[in-house]
């Protein structure tokens, strides 16, 4: 890894951290933590939980126990639409150790869960009733649940259940469904169609045109930790009623509580979810039927339950990325300037969820075309509801858009990087807003230099190494900056340090580490003196680990809490204190205490302040400021992916030889964890480019490769040395000057690979994954 400009020079280091002002306002003051040269920020601190994880000390949701716990197994439907005609559970009930067989005939009454992105408290993937009727809505829907004393007994009993179905016609063939596609009423809350000018006429009139269709298959979530939970309905003492206590693998503990409360018709105070460690989320660890069924069965059986989905189970009940068919049409003049940009198409969806795979998201902000038309239609299918998966929209959308750009560059005989540079917009081309921070061209140039882009052969098929044809390709990466409302942080200060608490999540990204680092810098404490608490629904506020927004959301809340803390501390000091008479904005946190900005002599340590006031601790809570920055600017992360691919002339095999990502993601907070996020995303991008594909049988709507043996993701040998670098230029309008880094890595990779393959052998593959049969 390397920073384009580390900007770190010891002498200029600011001493303390003043309170962050109004970074979200046009004339506002940037968060001082974003400034260059801050000690601690950006340092490659190793994971605070690393040792626990590698020694098995970290407990995951399926590793907790309750006394008297039962194990659950699910039976999944084998039709895509219809009714359960008969269900024979007698064998199962007679088996040793079986405590309960639950079907729609005896499941407790459950309300339909609120759906993610449709209801404000929605965490559920779809709005189907859960085991309440005999209806089947997708192939793989849970139709029975067994509880037994051991997992093996539960599994054996589940296998012995016989279900008869009355199947009804099902729409399981995308080729047919897409002919009946409809426009959804919204796309992530925004319009499903965007028009600037008249793109169709401009395209028709353009001197140079690319007009092509790109297709991407379904993808499934394959976090290393399959979904699991351990739960109990706990009787509170003194007739206080029951509490539902859940150890879950979750990236949204608060939304899950709110949704479950609605399902069970109880108050949110009656549900407590913790999720201290999550083995990967990527958008899949929200609320699906298994959690609800486990809680319902535990209630019915009157005993605690552990439910751990098998890998197949994850494919049956947890949604994945929908397949898409996208058209990208570009019209340009002879100098490569875009006159028309059309990005439209169809994505599979269901009538029971609300996530049209938003493939044109990236196209909204990337290029300065005179005329733009973006639209999405959805094809309703009988399938498990699709959902978010790392960079929903941008990952598959940039494959189409950035491939098309490469095709246009080829037509124009122009370097693809140059073509992109010629279309770099001044302002956001669809919203008209100014960019808060856009340094894409700098990142692209630095990446090109490091990668040796000038070695690229201008014509395809120009380089060989034995049987291997070698090519280079590039593509733009982008992902929006977001900061969702609802984040609240608490800070508890004691003479020994501070505990920061926020209902956020650690799914392996490094959140706990980075936020410890940030809090330490902000409060002027060493990292060892900071405890960061997260992953608990009883902590203040609500932060979704999604949309690459967690870092900013937490940052915003901690900024507010720092102000509250400093204000409280100042109210504790008396007239003899060196801080007496100072207002919070004249204060900075430094050296484990508060000091006057610009006056080294006026200082009092936290310990002294607390001691003089006779306090053993001080606790503050504050909500993040509203995300007004999002209304004031177009806010995005950017990057350029460079790929060198070999295509075997005999077999069509593709091997990636080198991969480099050069990113512009604001201030990088931890060089080590950020590099891992970028690399991990890029590896997932390689999977998408070359092998990932859910085999969805168009006749039955059944996923035919629900295992890691048959659903291919890259293995070590598929992954070359990956280099990542970044501009490290802070965004003046975000907490810490930072952007999220979790998702951008996967964007652009599909096209960079496809473009490199084209450059290697002259074959343009517009259909992912790029398997060897498409190159023979």
């Amino acid at each position, binding site marked *: 890894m390397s920073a384009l400009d580390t900007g770190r020079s010891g002498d200029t280091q600011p001493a303390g951290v003043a309170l962050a002002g109004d970074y979200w306002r046009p004339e506002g003051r940037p968060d001082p933590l974003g400034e260059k040269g801050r000690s601690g920020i950006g340092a490659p601190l190793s994971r605070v939980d690393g040792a626990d994880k590698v020694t098995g000390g970290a407990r995951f949701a399926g590793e907790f126990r309750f006394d008297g716990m039962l194990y659950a197994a699910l039976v999944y439907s084998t039709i895509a639409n219809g009714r359960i005609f008969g269900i024979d559970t007698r064998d199962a009930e007679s088996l040793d150790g079986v405590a309960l067989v639950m079907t729609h005939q005896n499941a407790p009454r459950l309300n339909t869960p609120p759906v993610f992105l449709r209801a404000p408290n929605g965490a559920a993937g779809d709005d189907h009733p859960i085991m309440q009727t005999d209806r089947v809505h997708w192939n793989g829907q849970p139709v029975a649940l067994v509880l037994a004393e051991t997992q093996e007994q539960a599994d054996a009993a589940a*296998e012995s259940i016989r279900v008869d179905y009355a199947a009804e016609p099902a729409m399981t063939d995308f080729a047919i469904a897409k002919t009946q596609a409809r426009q959804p009423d919204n796309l992530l809350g925004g319009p499903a169609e965007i028009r600037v000018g008249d793109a169709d006429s401009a395209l028709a009139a353009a001197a140079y045109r690319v007009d092509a269709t790109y297709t991407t298959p379904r993808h499934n979530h394959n976090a290393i930790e399959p979904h699991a939970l351990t739960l109990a309905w706990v009787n509170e003492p003194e007739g206080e009623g029951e509490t539902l206590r859940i150890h879950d693998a979750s990236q949204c503990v608060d939304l899950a509580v709110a949704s479950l409360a609605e399902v069970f018709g109880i108050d949110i105070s009656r549900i407590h979810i913790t999720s201290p460690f999550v083995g990967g989320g990527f958008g899949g660890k929200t609320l699906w039927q298994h959690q609800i069924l486990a809680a319902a069965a535990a209630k019915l059986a009157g005993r605690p339950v552990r439910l751990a989905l098998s890998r197949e189970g994850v494919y049956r009940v947890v949604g994945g990325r929908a397949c898409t068919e996208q058209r990208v049409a570009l019209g340009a003049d002879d100098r490569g300037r875009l006159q028309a940009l059309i990005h439209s198409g169809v994505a599979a969806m269901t009538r029971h969820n609300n996530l049209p795979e938003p493939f044109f998201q990236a196209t909204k902000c990337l290029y300065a075309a005179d005329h733009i038309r973006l639209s999405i239609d959805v094809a309703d299918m009988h399938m498990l509801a699709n959902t978010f998966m790392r960079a929903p929209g941008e990952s598959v959308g940039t494959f189409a858009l950035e491939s098309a750009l490469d095709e246009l560059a080829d037509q124009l005989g122009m370097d693809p990087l140059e073509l992109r540079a010629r279309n770099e917009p001044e302002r956001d081309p669809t919203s008209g807003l100014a960019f808060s921070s856009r340094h894409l061209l700098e990142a692209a140039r630095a990446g090109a230099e490091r990668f040796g882009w000038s070695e690229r052969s201008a014509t395809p098929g120009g380089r060989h190494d034995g049987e291997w044809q070698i090519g280079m390709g590039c593509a733009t990466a982008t992902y929006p900056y977001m900061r969702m409302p609802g984040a609240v942080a608490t800070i508890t200060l004691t003479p020994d340090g501070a505990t920061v608490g926020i209902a956020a999540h650690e799914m392996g990204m490094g959140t706990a580490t980075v936020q410890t680092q940030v809090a330490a810098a902000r409060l002027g404490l060493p990292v060892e003196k900071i405890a960061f608490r997260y992953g608990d629904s009883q902590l203040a506020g609500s932060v979704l680990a999604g949309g690459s927004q967690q870092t900013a959301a937490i940052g915003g809340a901690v900024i507010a809490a720092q102000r509250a803390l400093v204000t409280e501390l100042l109210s504790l000091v008396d007239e003899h204190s060196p801080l007496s008479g100072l207002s919070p904005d004249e204060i900075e946190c430094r050296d484990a205490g508060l000091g006057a900005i610009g006056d080294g002599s006026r200082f009092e340590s936290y310990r002294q302040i607390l001691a003089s006031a006779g306090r053993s601790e001080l606790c503050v809570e504050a909500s993040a400021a509203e995300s007004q920055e999002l209304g004031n600017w177009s806010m995005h992360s950017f990057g350029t992916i460079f790929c060198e691919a070999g295509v075997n002339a*005999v077999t069509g095999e593709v091997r990636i030889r080198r991969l480099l990502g050069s990113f512009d993601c604001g201030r990088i907070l931890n060089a080590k964890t950020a590099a891992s996020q970028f690399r991990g995303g890029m590896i997932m991008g390689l999977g998408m480019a070359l092998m990932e594909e859910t085999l969805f*049988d168009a006749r039955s709507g*059944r996923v035919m*490769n629900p295992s890691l043996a048959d659903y291919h993701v890259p*293995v070590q040998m*598929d992954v070359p040395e990956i280099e990542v670098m970044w501009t490290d230029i802070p965004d003046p309008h975000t907490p810490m000057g930072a952007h999220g880094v979790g998702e951008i890595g996967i964007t652009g990779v599909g096209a960079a690979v496809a473009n490199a393959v084209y450059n290697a052998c002259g074959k343009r593959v517009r259909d992912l994954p790029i398997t*060897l*049969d498409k190159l023979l």
Partner: protein
Amino acid sequence: MNAFDYHQAADGTQAIEQAVRCQQAKYLGGGTNLVDLMRETVERPQTLIDVTRLSRDITDTDGGGLIIGAAVTNAALAGDARVRRRYPLLARAILSGASAQIRNMATVGGNLLQRTRCAYFYDTATRCNKREPGAGCDALEGFHRYHAIFGTSSSCIATHPSDMAVALVALDARVHLRGPAGDRQLAITELHREPGERPDLETELQPEELIVAVELPPLAMAVHSQYRKVRDRASYAFALVSVASMVELDGDTIADTRLALGGVGTKPWRAWQAEAALRGQPATAATLAAAVDAELAAARPLPGNTFKVELARRLMIAELSQRLSDARNGGDA
């Protein structure tokens, strides 16, 4: 998975006694295939007879061949210095399969008798003649990218997935069997059956018959043999097409050759037609092309695996050409 009894056999004879005594018994090697199939409820044996205590020895035969005990692990076989020197394609084939962990568990007997990876065979919610004779075959009009183009029938198009078996077929290995009726030997090319009307019957083994060893005959040209496997990712994937090959030159004439294919046959595919068209012919590109065409004439691809015909053609030609040039250069690969 159903509940089952488990016995460990001290040797082959005892294993057979146990198998004859028990109902619905299956022999258990490393379990890397059988246990998976039991988890999927595709296999439901009442009894497992663990045969991993059968011979784990690799011994020299008088003529310069090797006898490999049925319980030798895939990893041990691939690592054996004699195998690597005399039969390098075998080591290559094994190492190109599965993962290190699986190869450490898997046995020679189990590898030969592993069952197809057809997704419909694994999923009891679908129709499969191999699982349930007469039920139908969902692969014919479904996903069959990994399926066979040789030896198929209208009942079944599933490939035999083993890499090791392809190498053994090329080497004319012999399988040593022991059953209730005594010992016998079989050419490995005779071990597996094509599906025909009965895809559930996969081998010529009699009930309770056990593989006790595999014998490799001496074969001088095998010193320069090779195995090349093409698949959907760099490692840990089954073959789309693989080629086991070796040639012996007499001047400019192909004196002898062995050619076998993986990923394309309902059984490990010995390319008899191609071999016949190569033997005694001049070592020219035209000979290779004609021989490969002769083999591919029997291919019966389906829409999802038509590419295998072209891939197999290219791979056979590339490999044979390489073997010829190796042989001309004194055999150094």
